[in-house]
């Protein structure tokens, strides 16, 4: 058994080395007056080797740790492994160790975080090679891996919180990677600020857990499991759950804290794939699953989680229908899929939620990396209206993306089908039919916008500039190999939990780490029916998208290529016209950003302006100026004592001492 703490520490080492080298190298370049442009090959090789190597090594360590543990666990159960590195803080009865924990939940997370993480690092080697900030990029990416692994492996809430904030920081740093672009900086700031709102909830939630259970170590889950609802003051449990959920909402981009994620696409595409699709954003789901034993004590909180999840799912999917930026579509799709996961958690199907986290990591990472490959092929063109027809030129990208798209749409037997079906099945089993309906509709919408993406990107004729068209080319092997591996993962990852208990590996594995809820039994027939329903919705969505988005100009515009126009079939155009106001609203993303601006930020700004102009400038400055004036006055008087002659001062000293001694002697 390897030491667990090496797993996060290795990427940290990578961060230190890469960061130091990048700092030295960039300052040297700046000193020599060399401008931007790609790094020399040697430096790139070094950064790539260190970056991929440390993460890969940590992945190897992780699998070396978790494979035997998993085998043992499946064979007959294994206790969680807790490894204490040192005592972190202690006061009175309270103490927190810097400790790492390997149990079913963290093993699951660990497996795909290190796996997908390594692939994305590898992909970045090719994707980022023309970037000036290559070293900085790998340093931050390594730091992110460190934080994420700390988050996953943390054996108590404070350690988890280190990772939680660490991934937030890295997310900020990497969204703002192009720090010379205003929108990237603004997006980074937005992500940071919105995450803070959630983090307040999380921190308070940690204190709440401490107050409820007297410890922040995950052992509190055991006590929670053996607790009856009536044992605790329910209100406090609700509060804790809601606070923790607030934190999860922030990190996992749930309504209303989702607004940062679409903007986060300003970062490099591999970052979007790793942080904003596969790993970090699922931390919220992980947190809810981790504390599931607490959540089940508060059924109404669970309901809230389910409704927020379902709402987010359909809301984000609706926005995704009308986005033209390829990464924005994927971003809203991510938000929507995260909604699914919370929906699952909300109805008590934590295992199903985690299952979707697992499969989603594969196909969403694959989609993002594929989109990155497309963007790179088109010279940083992200607007799908200027794409089209490039499938033959980038065959590998196209094929892998198609697999992943089918997976996310829920086509049997790809990964997304099993996980999504598991969620919907659980919702139905819980008797939440409204939520179920929302889920099915969302599934249809998902299939529609994903195929809209594929069609607009790959089908039909090219709509960009001839120059772009000339340069379209397939990506190098460092990028296509990860794509293929992830595509394969999207295809087969679902088989760890095939329905009807044929080989229900995952639930058996996860059961010890999650809360136990009474099973809702459904007949196989009903289950099959539901499955057919969701599959049908998906196929319907696909069919519609394929019909509408032909990628060829309408017959009446044949021959011309109006760039920047969505090329749709007449039926689609007619539908859009009929949709009218609702369509516009969807296109404008339900005006959420504007609403936040008007309702929250606007008033804040007004208050701020008042405090600045009215309170600060007049009142505070008045006090400061008045006291300054007083000091000046006093100083003017006192400066006559400042003769500048040391002997005068010494005499003053002596007289003072005289006075003190006299006081001591005669008092």
């Amino acid at each position, binding site marked *: 058994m390897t030491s667990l703490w090496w797993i996060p520490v290795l990427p940290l080492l990578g961060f230190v080395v890469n960061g130091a080298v990048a700092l030295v190298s960039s300052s040297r370049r700046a000193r020599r007056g060399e401008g931007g442009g790609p790094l020399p090959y040697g430096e790139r090789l070094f950064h790539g080797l260190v970056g991929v190597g440390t993460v890969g090594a940590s992945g190897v360590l992780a699998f070396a740790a978790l494979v035997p543990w998993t085998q043992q666990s499946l064979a007959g159960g294994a206790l969680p492994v807790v490894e204490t590195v040192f005592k972190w803080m202690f006061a009175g009865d309270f103490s927190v160790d810097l400790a790492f924990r390997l149990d079913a939940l963290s093993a699951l997370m660990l497996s795909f975080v290190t796996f997908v993480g390594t692939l994305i690092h590898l992909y970045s080697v090719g994707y980022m090679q023309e970037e000036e900030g290559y070293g900085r990029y790998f340093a931050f990416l390594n730091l992110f891996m460190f934080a994420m692994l700390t988050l996953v492996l943390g054996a108590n809430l404070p350690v988890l919180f280190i990772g939680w904030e660490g991934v937030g920081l890295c997310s900020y740093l990497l969204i703002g990677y192009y720090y010379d672009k205003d929108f990237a900086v603004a997006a980074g700031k937005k992500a940071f600020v919105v995450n803070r709102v959630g983090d307040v909830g999380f921190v308070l939630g940690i204190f709440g857990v401490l107050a409820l259970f007297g410890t922040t170590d995950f052992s509190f889950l055991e006590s929670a499991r053996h607790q009856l609802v009536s044992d605790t003051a329910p209100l406090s449990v609700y509060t804790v759950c809601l606070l923790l959920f607030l934190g999860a909402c922030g990190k996992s981009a749930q309504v209303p804290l989702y607004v940062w994620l679409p903007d986060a696409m300003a970062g490099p595409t591999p970052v979007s794939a790793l942080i904003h699709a596969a790993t970090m954003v699922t931390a919220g789901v992980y947190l809810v699953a981790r504390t599931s034993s607490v959540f089940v004590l508060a059924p109404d909180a669970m309901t809230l989680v389910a409704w927020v999840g379902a709402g987010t799912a359909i809301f984000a999917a609706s926005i995704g229908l009308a986005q033209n930026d390829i990464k924005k579509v994927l971003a809203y799709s991510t938000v929507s899929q995260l909604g699914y996961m919370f929906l699952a958690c909300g109805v008590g199907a934590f295992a199903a939620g985690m299952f979707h986290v697992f499969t989603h990591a594969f196909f969403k990472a694959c989609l993002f990396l594929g989109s990155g490959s497309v963007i790179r092929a088109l010279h940083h063109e992200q607007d799908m209206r200027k794409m089209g027809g490039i499938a033959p030129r980038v065959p590998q990208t196209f094929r892998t993306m198609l697999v992943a798209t089918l997976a996310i749409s829920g086509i049997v037997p790809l990964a997304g089908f099993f996980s999504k079906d598991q969620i919907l099945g659980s919702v139905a089993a819980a008797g939440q039919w409204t939520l179920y309906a929302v889920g099915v509709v969302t599934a249809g919408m998902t299939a529609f916008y994903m195929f809209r993406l594929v069609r607009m990107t790959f089908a039909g004729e090219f709509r960009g500039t001839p120059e772009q068209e000339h340069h379209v080319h397939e990506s190098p092997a460092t990028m296509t190999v990860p794509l293929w591996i992830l595509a394969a993962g999207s295809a087969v990852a679902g088989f760890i939990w095939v329905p009807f208990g044929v080989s229900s590996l995952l639930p058996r594995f996860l059961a010890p780490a999650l809360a136990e809820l009474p099973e809702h039994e459904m007949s196989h027939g009903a289950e099959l029916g539901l499955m057919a329903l969701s599959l049908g919705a998906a196929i319907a969505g696909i069919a519609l998208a394929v019909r509408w988005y032909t990628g060829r100009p309408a017959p009446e515009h044949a021959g011309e290529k109006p760039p920047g126009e969505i090329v749709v079939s007449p039926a689609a155009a007619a539908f859009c016209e009929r949709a009218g106001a609702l369509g516009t609203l969807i296109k404008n993303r339900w005006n959420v950003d504007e609403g936040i601006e008007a309702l929250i930020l606007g008033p804040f700004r007004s208050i701020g302006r008042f405090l600045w102009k009215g309170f600060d400038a007049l009142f505070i400055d008045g006090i400061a100026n008045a006291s300054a004036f007083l000091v000046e006055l006093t100083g003017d008087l006192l400066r006559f004592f400042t003769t500048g002659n*040391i002997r005068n001062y010494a005499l003053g000293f002596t007289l003072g001492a005289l006075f003190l001694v006299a006081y001591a002697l005669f008092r």
Partner: protein
Amino acid sequence: MSVSPAAFLAAGTVLFVIGLVGALLKRNALSIFLSIELMMNAVNLLFLTYGRMRGDPSSHVIVFFVIAIAAAEAAVGLAVFVALFRSRQTIEVDRINLLKW
């Protein structure tokens, strides 16, 4: 038979006062500094006497510190004088009144 501690105390105090008079009346910065060294040592003597009276070896430690700090002070002070002399060609304190308003 031995000497009463009061005698030591008196000797220390007299030395201290002599040092004080020197510090107040001398005009040469170096002489003032010398007087201050004398005052410190007078105080050291008092410390040792009190320590002896109370049977407390801590007094030795404190004197030790006083000496160490005096050494630091002397090094910096003398460096200041040298620097001062370089720029003003004198270290008469009456002619050095840079600290004036």
